[in-house]
């Protein structure tokens, strides 16, 4: 290999430092939660309204394998959510949508995690703090179990204009393992 730049110092000389610095300054870690092994709920509360967007990155497993979770905003468990999904399970592609949901299923839906294969995902929530728009969610999530698994693209909507100040992830059954981590990040606007 003959790179012209392979280190940060070299990258700076070729102009890459500008991009790097901008990315680092605009993306902040707000909080993270680790599973306890005895609870099926992960909560981020008192989320500040000082960012433009939120991103959640997670690696999740349930004590009893195969359980998926839903996302909820501001403790709202009423049927105020809708979603559309596109996913592939290694053989077929499925698209679907649901209205009047009591949460957003951002997780792997056709397979779920196993004891040796976690589900991972990235969730983006844009304009989460504005009070004039309903809130839209974008998610990519998947699990591979060396012979089964799925990859999911999800868009979700919360029919509420309130600023998001709390996010819960609640398993349909079982508990999050101690290897589960959910991390919340804030992305600043210019």
């Amino acid at each position, binding site marked *: 290999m*003959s790179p012209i730049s392979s280190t940060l110092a070299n990258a700076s000389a070729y102009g890459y430092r500008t991009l790097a610095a901008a990315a*680092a300054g605009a993306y902040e870690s*707000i909080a993270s939660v680790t599973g306890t092994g005895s609870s099926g709920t992960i909560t981020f509360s008192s989320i500040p309204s000082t960012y433009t967007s939120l991103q959640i990155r997670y*690696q999740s497993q349930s004590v009893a394998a195969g359980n998926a979770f839903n996302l909820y905003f501001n403790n709202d468990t009423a049927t105020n959510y809708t979603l559309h999904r596109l996913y*592939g399970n290694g*053989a077929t592609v499925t698209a679907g949508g649901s209205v009047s949901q009591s949460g957003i299923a951002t997780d792997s839906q056709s397979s779920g995690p196993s004891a040796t294969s*976690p589900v991972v995902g990235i969730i983006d929530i844009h304009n989460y703090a504005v009070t004039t728009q309903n809130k839209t969610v974008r998610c990519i999530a*998947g699990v591979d179990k060396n012979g089964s698994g799925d990859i999911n693209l999800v868009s979700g909507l919360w029919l509420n204009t309130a600023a998001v100040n709390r996010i819960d992830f609640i398993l349909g059954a079982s508990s999050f393992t101690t290897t589960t981590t959910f991390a919340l990040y804030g992305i600043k606007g210019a």
Partner: protein
Amino acid sequence: MPATYEPIATTTLGSATATISFTSISSAYTDLRLVLTGTHETTAATVRMQVNSDTGTNYSFTELSGDGATATSARSTSSARINCGNANFNNTLPSLITVDWFSYAGSTNKTCLVTTSQDRNGSGVVYRTVGLWRSTSAITSIQMFPSTGNFATGTTATLYGILRA
């Protein structure tokens, strides 16, 4: 709040090269993100990925793809690598590949999400892939390489570290 999403290293190829490697990756972060954009030197190839120079059949992946007309899902089990797309990394127009490794220094098997995007003004593909490396070892190196031949001059890859609070 602490800023994160820090650049660890960038490689821009000054000549055609068979493998782009990031080595001696520290365990100081929670997740890794690799962003690669570029072309193949001569032909259309599949970009493949291994970690820790593991060439055993310890990988598997499930992918979802669309080519402008058809959506497809496929899987590879007990593979010797994770594919980032399929024969779409060509020598004329650049492709964009992102790889997110989660809890890469943790105690579980390692899972990644891969996005592969290319549009060729009338053709092209988009891939979304979940990959598994069946090892509980911390990831300390990542190797990206085309299925045949070399990455072209100018191909760029950057590795970022993301740290949770």
